[in-house]
């Protein structure tokens, strides 16, 4: 199922085709089409294009990620360029000083690359495997929950809460991640649960 209208098809549909679009709505249909045709040769060739949304503010500008290699074909894909999506009704291809530099955050030198553990009192992180990190987390959670879970309050009412461990959720993850997170956190009985909405 793909409801996408391709940008190329969209820009190619000059004249009458364009009149019904947002660009056409400006009343500059022909000019826009001519402009699109003129810049086409300067567009990146031999890259895969993926539609995405700027990760920063909630204007949620449409962006296009250009990569060497195509993730959809199962290839390793390295993002080499990011630009505004001209089809997007809100930003119409423009980006702000933050969005225009998105490539630098994707490829930041300070991306976290491996699970790491800092032991009590230590002055450094040490690399560990995913399994070791996750097993350790589950152990710490279980031990704390087993010790501090409150099944009933003093009045004998069932309350099933665990408040000695908390979870601070993100603010730029997807709804789908949010839902998976919600299920896992709530099913454990956690109430110390919040997100960035307040700050």
């Amino acid at each position, binding site marked *: *199922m793909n*409801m996408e209208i391709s940008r190329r098809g969209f820009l190619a549909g000059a004249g009458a085709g364009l009149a019904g679009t947002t660009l056409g709505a400006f009343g500059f249909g022909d000019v826009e089409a001519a402009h699109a045709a003129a810049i086409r040769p300067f567009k990146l060739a031999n890259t895969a294009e993926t*539609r*995405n949304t*700027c990760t*920063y*503010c909630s204007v949620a500008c449409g962006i296009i990620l*250009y990569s060497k290699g195509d993730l959809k074909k199962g290839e390793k894909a*390295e*993002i080499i360029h990011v630009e505004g999506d001209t*089809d997007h*009704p*809100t*930003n119409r291809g423009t980006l*702000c*000083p*933050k969005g225009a530099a*998105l490539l*630098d*955050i*994707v490829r*930041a030198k*300070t*991306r*976290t690359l491996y*699970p790491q553990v*800092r032991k*009590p009192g230590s*002055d450094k992180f040490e690399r560990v495997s*995913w399994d070791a990190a*996750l*097993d350790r*987390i*589950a*152990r*710490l959670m*279980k031990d704390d929950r087993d010790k*501090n*879970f409150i099944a009933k309050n003093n009045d004998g009412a069932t*309350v*099933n809460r665990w408040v*000695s*461990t*908390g*979870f601070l959720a*993100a*603010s*730029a*993850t*997807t*709804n*789908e*991640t*949010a839902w*998976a*997170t919600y299920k896992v956190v709530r*099913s454990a009985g956690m109430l110390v*649960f919040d997100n*960035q909405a*307040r700050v």
Partner: protein
Amino acid sequence: MTNSWTDIKNTDLVVVMGGNAAEAHPCGFKWVTEAKANRGAKLIVVDPRFTRTASVADYYAPIRQGTDIAFLLGVINHCIRNDKIQWAYTKAFTNAAYVVKEGFGWQDGLFTGYDEEKRDYNRSTWDYEIGPDGYAVVDETLQHPRCVWNLLKQHVAIYTPEMVERICGTPKDKFLKVAEMISECSSPTKTMTSMYALGWTQHSKGSQNIRAMAMLQLILGNIGVRGGGMNALRGHSNIQGLTDIGLMSNLIPGYLTIPTEREPTFDVYMSTRGFKPLRPDQMSYWQNYRKFFVSFLKSMWGDAATPENAFAYDWLPKLDVPAYDVLRAFELMHQGKMNGYFCQGFNPLLSFPNRKKITAALSKLKFLVVMDPLQTETARFWENHGANNDVNPASIQTEVIELPTTCFAEDEGSLVNSGRWLQWHWAGGTPPGEAKHDAWIMAQIHLRLKELYRKEGGPVPEPIVNLDWRYADPNEPTPEELAKELNGSAVVDITDPNDPTKVVVAKGKQLVSFAALRDDGKTACGCWIYSGCFTEAGNQMARRDNSDPDDTGAFGKWSWSWPVNRRILYNRASADVSGKPWDPSRKLLEWDGTKWTGYDVPDIAPNAKPDVVMPFIMNPEGVSRLFTRAMMRDGPFPSHYEPFESPVANVVAPKVRGNPVARVFRNDFEQFGDAKEFPYAATSYRLTEHFHFWTKHAHANAVLQPEFFVEISEELAKEKGIKKGGMVRVWSKRGSVTAKAVVTKRIKPLICDGKTVHIVGIPLHWGFIGEAKKGFGPNSLTPYVGDANIETPEYKAFLVDIEPIAGPVA
């Protein structure tokens, strides 16, 4: 937002107050430019700083931070006194005519029922008089002395232009100019939009700031119309979504609430959620609460949630306090009462107030887990970075586990923009190193925990081992699987109530909308307001048809907006009581004699008669509220309160410090400073080149704005002997920072009640990791107190002192 970014082009007047869209939301702000260029719309900016938004405004008025309520109630007072009210709208669509119970009042800055000991109100008088017919009493003539309109008139009467000048420091002539421009929008054919952000929320009375503007918008008839609305610009890319899905202490997806321990059973919980209409024939849509709630429980626990066990109601945790918000969480941590904490894409060491307290709190944890695409200061709170993080690692016993996650470019799924559009995006790059999707990580944690409980047993394992986790690969639920769960599906064949042989929705099929939800366990739905986002017709959030018939700005086929793809909330209010659009040139909906038709999905039953069913269908009144009854802790009307740290006393209530019901933990009270010791009014803000604490990791942004600075007026610089580009020390009762001084004409001293108030601006983008120079943020200085209703910390108004120190001069 009630409206959307693209709808702003339809407005006549933009009021930016409590925000700075030109710098913080530049590509959204273009719609203000469109409205100015194409419609001749005007832009008003009210802000302590002459921001870049102000620089393109038609009119700018300065205001002291933390005094917005006095200003806005002043504007309401101006409208009432000059009869600039959209009367037909106000009378029909607000509770202006509702009669309030006897005994309600306001005196010396406090509403009826204040208990100083508890710092709380007994709110029993804050409600309507109920008549013998069981409905609220109304007086449509607005003559009753206790009708909402007369109480409002009386409440705002003290906020004269002179009073506004005394409190806000806004010169009277400037205030009057703004009030006059706004009051013109009382015409049914003129609309105004309010664009606000954290400049309104980050106060100890933030919720009431927003209410004050909402009330103004209602009496001007600007809610539910094109080019109108209350438009929260919002911060992070999915902060709307995370809130919709209820990732907060006291929420269940779709703005349902987690039970408290006073609601030990399903029936007790439901007993206060009947939402009986307060007037005849009103929809009071929350009457469907049970359907939303049961369907949510089914989406959590699937077949294990049965009518016999009240759909696993017992497995939901029950609250003993109103909420474990972040301030409470770190207070408990600071007291040594918490052992573990997870930070998923969040950096509290720089985000939460009173950093010294945050560091001390994190140091008392047994374990901290950080999931983030970037190395955060929080993950390294134990690492010594000299003056920028002056800690001794050996003395900190917290075990820290840092997990690398993917970033937006490597992940697929939906994000909700400020205008409630759920937009799907696709992954374009391979994750670096061993970075993993958050959903994979959460699945791994859940599966391991479940396994441990299966093997070892332990207290109440049922909610964990029975969590519905029927994904094709339990190790990594796909975005599509999760989105389908949010939308909801039929658990069994659902038949037509009039013809049991006819199957309306077959077992396992996606629901078309929340109208199909059931309260008997036959449907499951993770988030009722998202129902319709992923139907049998496919992923509606991935729609990319950018057509916009008649250029209304709705873009109804682009992505999908909640609820039911509605683009403007309360849109039935765009037409008068007979169903005709207030402004035919800005038609949104219209009653054709039998049904509602138009450019948007009607926010009312399609056949609801216009003179019978009122537009605010979520309220049991059917109308909007100028008087909020007992629904907010600090008053049914907004009232002016100073920030907890204020350069001046409260002129209208000298004895009241801060918001009288804001929660303050005991030790934090002792850490509030006063104006004698800390004479300058500080505020925090963002820069257009940076996004919070992320872009200091991005080379280009670090180059554009490399270094922490504070911004002060030429007058203050002169008074304190501070040079342009010279180094300064800024300190509050809670901490101290050093910064470069930017001496500017953008900030000017204000005169408040005869006293000169200097403002110190403190941007928030620096820390000790990334490509920018190491620096500090305002949270080293800010007080530990939140809004009385939702606990948003008071970052926008606090007190500091400042002095020049030795250092390089640029």
